[in-house]
């Protein structure tokens, strides 16, 4: 349907100008709904709507009404741009700049959408009527207008930069040869300005990283990369946390696309795959020295990591407390280091780990930091074996010391554990170093991150891990025991969960093949969907055996111990009615003892943590009758060794609740919370 809009241009553009200027907030924030009297609804409604809404929806119509040779349209658009430019000037920026940037980014997106649609039509059917299709002249006028706007918009404040970035991103996909050099010129100029702010620029570079580095789209974007990376490195400081976060965002976006090789690693890999040593991984007509480029990138990576670790103690990004009920492993999608570490070659990773291990050795009294958690998770996702090899000895040295006096258990839970432990002798040889409670909790929290996603590699360190955990459980502070329980839970989750082993954005395993390594720099930015082939981790027999041993140690032995000590005379059938139970509950307050309370709290906490980790793969045998389809799924998914876990937990919790009511422990919040949650998980209540 091709309607001739020319006769209406005057009224449309006049109204567009009115709409643009009327949507600018000129009196503080955008107006909120005004309370309205029923008698004067309509007048107030108009008054209310006049100041509301920050979106100029003309972007839907404008790009679709242009026809080839329609000069009047472009003249009118030029007038609109002229008016808008006044509001985009760096000296006159405000919320209106955001509105303009948003409007033009949507306009550009729809224009380009139309162009690609028409292009596709032409490719499918060469005889299609091209009379109304956009031509080169239209594109020229469009690009001229956009460049004029960008002259000012590129120097916008941080608030408008997200929209400007989207506009630039769209334009680079459309005309990379024209926009990219223009952008680099402006960015390099911006770095020289005294009032330059890295935050907006890093956001812009981060958003435009893909179209700029996607080699199929723009071949030369990669050439500017080392310069930009090094320039941004100067802005990582301990004094301004915000700046650092934005630079990290930019780096993460780049690392998602560009692999970082140590030159020696690459050479060795090429030789191994019998590829030519004169680097046939590049195109012939590249305009830069690629070996130098690889060298520069690896230097940058090391410089960045060293600098970041140096300022790490001063970055006070506190770790958000994990939600304890997490029953699965969660990969943090906002982790800025995941791409950086997994995109680096093996020997670079080793160097990072050395630097990081030194940091952990030297900085004892530091509060828990989100970045530490991110970095460890990134290392674990890339190569858990290497991470444990480098980092675990640090923990051993920091936490354990040889014992000089004979071992004596601190509480009965420790006794139960030692009776059933394979490494009881080893455990008795060591003791926890006299650390401050906070530091101990900090180390245990890092240990929790360290065992996350480690698959079965923790088996090599099982005696030391067990020693640390059992000693922590015996610590006089209950918080230390809680931190140890979280480590137990994470270790078991990492053993029995199903998750992809190659959670990196670049499928590093593919570089093991000659054909893939050859294209490593040619295919930068290629859509990920084609390349992703998850390599799933599924517990092997050995790992399940370890999980069962761990479960027996931290769950069954405690259940057995508590049952012997407290539940010997409890039958499991509740003979009293509710009102009697409430009376008993209120009368038995005085009978509780501190030591018993501590033991039961620790015991129930550990049982709950272990069960929470395993229940995802424990069947509902003897609890529910399931349909045949679910049963088929059960047979495949659930681990047979865990079949009786749910019932055992229900029996124990039932008796324990009864005992607690009769002995005055039901007023203890922690004990009852663990027992209630345990029961809920066992019957699958939280899944419903």
């Amino acid at each position: 349907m091709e309607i001739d809009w020319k006769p209406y241009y005057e009224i449309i553009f006049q109204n567009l100008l009115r709409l643009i200027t009327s949507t600018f907030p000129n009196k503080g924030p955008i107006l909120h709904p005004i309370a309205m009297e029923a008698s004067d609804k309509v007048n107030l409604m108009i008054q209310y709507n006049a100041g509301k809404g920050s979106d100029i929806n003309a972007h839907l119509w404008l790009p679709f009404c242009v026809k080839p040779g329609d000069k009047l349209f472009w003249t009118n658009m030029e007038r609109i741009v002229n008016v808008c430019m006044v509001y985009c000037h760096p000296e006159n920026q405000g919320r209106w700049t955001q509105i303009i940037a948003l409007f033009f980014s949507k306009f550009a997106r729809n224009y380009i959408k139309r162009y690609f649609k028409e292009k596709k039509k032409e490719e499918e059917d060469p005889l299609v009527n091209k009379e109304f299709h956009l031509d080169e002249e239209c594109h020229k006028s469009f690009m001229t207008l956009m460049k004029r706007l960008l002259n000012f918009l590129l120097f916008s404040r941080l608030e408008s930069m997200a929209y400007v970035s989207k506009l630039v991103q769209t334009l680079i996909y459309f005309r990379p040869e024209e926009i990219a050099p223009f952008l680099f010129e402006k960015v390099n100029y911006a770095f020289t300005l005294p009032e330059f702010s890295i935050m907006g620029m890093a956001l812009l570079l981060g958003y435009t990283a893909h179209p700029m580095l996607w080699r199929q789209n723009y071949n030369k974007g990669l050439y500017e990369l080392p310069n930009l990376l090094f320039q941004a490195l100067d802005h990582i400081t301990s004094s301004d946390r915000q700046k650092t976060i934005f630079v990290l965002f930019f780096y993460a976006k780049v690392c998602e696309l560009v692999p970082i090789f140590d030159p020696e690693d690459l050479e060795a890999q090429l030789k191994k795959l019998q590829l030519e040593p004169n680097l046939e991984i590049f195109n012939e007509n590249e305009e830069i020295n690629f070996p130098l480029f690889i060298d520069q990138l690896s230097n940058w990576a090391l410089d960045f990591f060293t600098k970041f670790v140096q300022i790490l103690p001063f970055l006070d990004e506190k770790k958000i407390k994990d939600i304890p009920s997490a029953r699965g492993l969660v990969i943090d999608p906002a982790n800025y280091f995941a791409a950086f570490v997994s995109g680096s070659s093996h020997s670079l990773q080793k160097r990072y780990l050395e630097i990081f291990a030194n940091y952990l050795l030297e900085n004892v009294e530091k509060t828990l930091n989100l970045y530490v958690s991110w970095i460890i998770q990134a290392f674990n996702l890339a190569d858990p074996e290497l991470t444990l090899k480098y980092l675990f000895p640090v923990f051993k040295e920091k936490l354990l010391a040889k014992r000089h006096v004979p071992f004596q258990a601190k509480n009965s839970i420790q006794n139960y554990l030692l009776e059933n432990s394979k490494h009881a002798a080893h455990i008795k040889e060591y003791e926890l170093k006299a650390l401050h409670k906070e530091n101990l909790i900090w180390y245990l929290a890092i240990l929790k991150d360290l065992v996350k996603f480690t698959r079965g590699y923790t088996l090599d360190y099982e005696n030391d891990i067990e020693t640390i955990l059992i000693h922590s459980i015996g610590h006089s502070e209950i918080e230390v025991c809680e931190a140890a329980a979280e480590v137990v839970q994470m270790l078991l989750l990492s053993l029995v969960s199903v998750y992809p082993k190659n959670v990196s954005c670049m499928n590093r395993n593919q570089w093991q093949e000659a054909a893939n390594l050859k294209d490593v720099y040619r295919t930068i930015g290629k859509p990920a969907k084609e390349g992703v082939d998850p390599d799933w981790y599924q517990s092997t027999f050995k790992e399940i055996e370890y999980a069962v041993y761990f479960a027996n140690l931290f769950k069954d032995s405690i259940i057995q111990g508590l049952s012997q000590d407290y539940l010997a005379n409890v039958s499991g059938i509740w003979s009293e009615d509710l009102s009697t139970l409430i009376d008993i509950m209120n009368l038995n307050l005085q009978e509780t003892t501190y030591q018993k309370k501590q033991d039961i709290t620790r015991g129930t906490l550990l049982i709950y943590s272990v069960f929470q980790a395993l229940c995802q793969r424990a069947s509902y045998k003897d609890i529910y009758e399931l349909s045949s389809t679910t049963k088929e799924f059960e047979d495949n998914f659930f681990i047979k060794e865990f079949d009786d876990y749910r019932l055992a937990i229900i029996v124990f919790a039932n008796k324990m609740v009864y005992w607690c009511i009769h002995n005055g422990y039901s007023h203890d919040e922690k004990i009852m919370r663990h027992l209630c949650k345990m029961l809920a998980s066992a019957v699958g209540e939280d899944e419903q």
Partner: protein
Amino acid sequence: MNSNENKGSNPFDPLIPKYPLFLQQNIEKEAEELYNEIQSQILTNPPDLLEKIVWEIPYKARILRKRYKITQEQREFIVSVFLNYIFDKPTSIFEKNAILRALNSTIGRKKVKNLRLNWRKVYHFLEEVFFPTHVDFILGRARNSNCFEKFLEFLSKVRWLYEESHLEELFLIVRQNISVSEPARVKALALLLCFFTAHKDYSSGYYEKYLPELFEYWSWRINPSYDKIFFDLIARLATYNIKLSIELIFFLIEIMWKLIGSPTTR
């Protein structure tokens, strides 16, 4: 199915072949069984069918749509039943609300090509349920705010299902209202926003005859915020864009509320 043969053969979800083998299931049979169950429930026409349509079938349809990917024929059949119950059967506002919700999610973003909708019926429904001049004993004085929002969403999804003549009838109503008073003008514009559509099967000439009228309304000294409505209307003509932008839905809801009065001010 825990077999190598099944790897990559599932046509329903491109991700499933990438799961570990023991998590892959053959869901083709299950989808068919579920649809047959829904169909037989409707076709046998039991006395409590309305209850089933309100309480049971929407959930089954949701599972069918989300878990197994519903086919176009199945979608059209379920949608036609829902439409029948909304416009032709006497149902309460609560039932209409539930069915509208299910209807919107069943249509989703897909086009139900083989259905046709009587524009008059939809318009009368809007007038009678949301702008009532008398108390309807079936609907009662029930609060209909939720239902109204869902109905607007429904309108934006089905606008292009009306017959060709609906534009003529629509403009007749608009002409009658637009110059009467300010509230009537707002209502007329809101009706245009709800029902005006562009269909690529019709020639540009068919729409061009309404353009002078449309631009005449626009040239009147009216509130600048109405510009958004007109830009949306002409964008539909330029792009065949049948979607109502989300912001405009909210904008329209506000306009409508102010016309019919919110439940708290009535």
